[in-house]
């Protein structure tokens, strides 16, 4: 088992709030001690909303989910923005593992 330390409150936090043009869908990305917490809120009828949060501990987890995300086709601009913002937030959470080179690194 991997033990992680709960150090959220002492970390500088980076977050992104992204809304689609119609204010129906809102995406939030927040770096936390375990990785990047991603929240998605969808407005329903009246005052009702659906909000769910998942935690991405690695870039691979995010990429795997991204390929199956319906937003990829329904709102490609928002999807692309989320991908960019995720990488920024994740890089802040894991500064040591940042690789933005040409892919030729060993």
């Amino acid at each position, binding site marked *: 088992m991997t033990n992680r330390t709960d150090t959220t409150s002492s970390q500088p936090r980076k977050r992104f709030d992204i809304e689609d043009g119609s204010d129906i869908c809102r995406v939030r990305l927040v770096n936390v001690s*375990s990785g990047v*917490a991603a929240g998605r809120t969808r407005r329903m009828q009246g*005052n009702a909303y659906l*909000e769910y*949060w998942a935690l991405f501990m690695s870039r691979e987890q995010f990429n795997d989910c991204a390929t199956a995300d319906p937003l990829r086709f329904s709102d490609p601009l928002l999807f692309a923005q989320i991908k960019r913002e995720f990488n920024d937030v994740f890089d802040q959470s894991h500064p040591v593992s940042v690789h933005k080179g040409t892919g030729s690194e060993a």
Partner: protein
Amino acid sequence: MSSINPIQSASIRERAQRPDYSAQALAAIIRIPLAKDPAELLDKLMHATEAIGASASVYTAAIPEDGNEPSCLCLFACHPAFAQEQSSRSLLLKHPWFRFARTHTTPGTDHQIHLQHEADVAAIDLARKYGFKSCLIVPTPAGANLDRLEMLCLGSERDDDFEGSEARVVRALARSLAAELHDWLTSYLRRQLRESARLQERDLDLLALEWQGLGTKEISMRTGMSVASVDSRFQRINARLKCASRSASAKRAAAYGLLEPT
């Protein structure tokens, strides 16, 4: 990887027999109230889930609104692919776990879930792929005036990990975790609604009296306001809470914990 504890070296029942097990789990649970927002809450839920020795957990709350559909908050402390797949299939409120929570007041395991449809079987099969081979469902029935329902589900990569006498301590810890989550949510919802609707103390007094079932004249007598003032104040409250009637406003305020004495 299908769970947050991919190498579950010991079963939860084995871990529960370690001398420092409860203390470590409680240390993680008592950090839940420190979360500032749902992102931090999920992080702390993840830590508490690990400390209990579970592979994964899910916390869901259904908050009644002025309409047919409730609002729903879900925290997936598990592999994110489960959150995505589950959400694309149906609302977690329709999951057999949540149905169990709706009809029970005490925790139960996967053995106590009745599968009624093919969709139930598919939902359980999906969960088993992501760290919920066995599970413990903890319903959190709200108080008398709080028409809200919450559920915590802990999962294990092992079958029958929540059965037997060793699991008693796990059940106690899970209930404690569910209660902390409930308290956090109540405080969070109350703050959110109060700020977004810009409600004042006087508004809350009126909503509380409406929630008690009092009519305009009685509210007028109790508050010293004129009948016309009571009516116009309720019109403003309804607009701010985006509700069609004062009873709907009171119901919403109660569901969000605004009418609980602080």
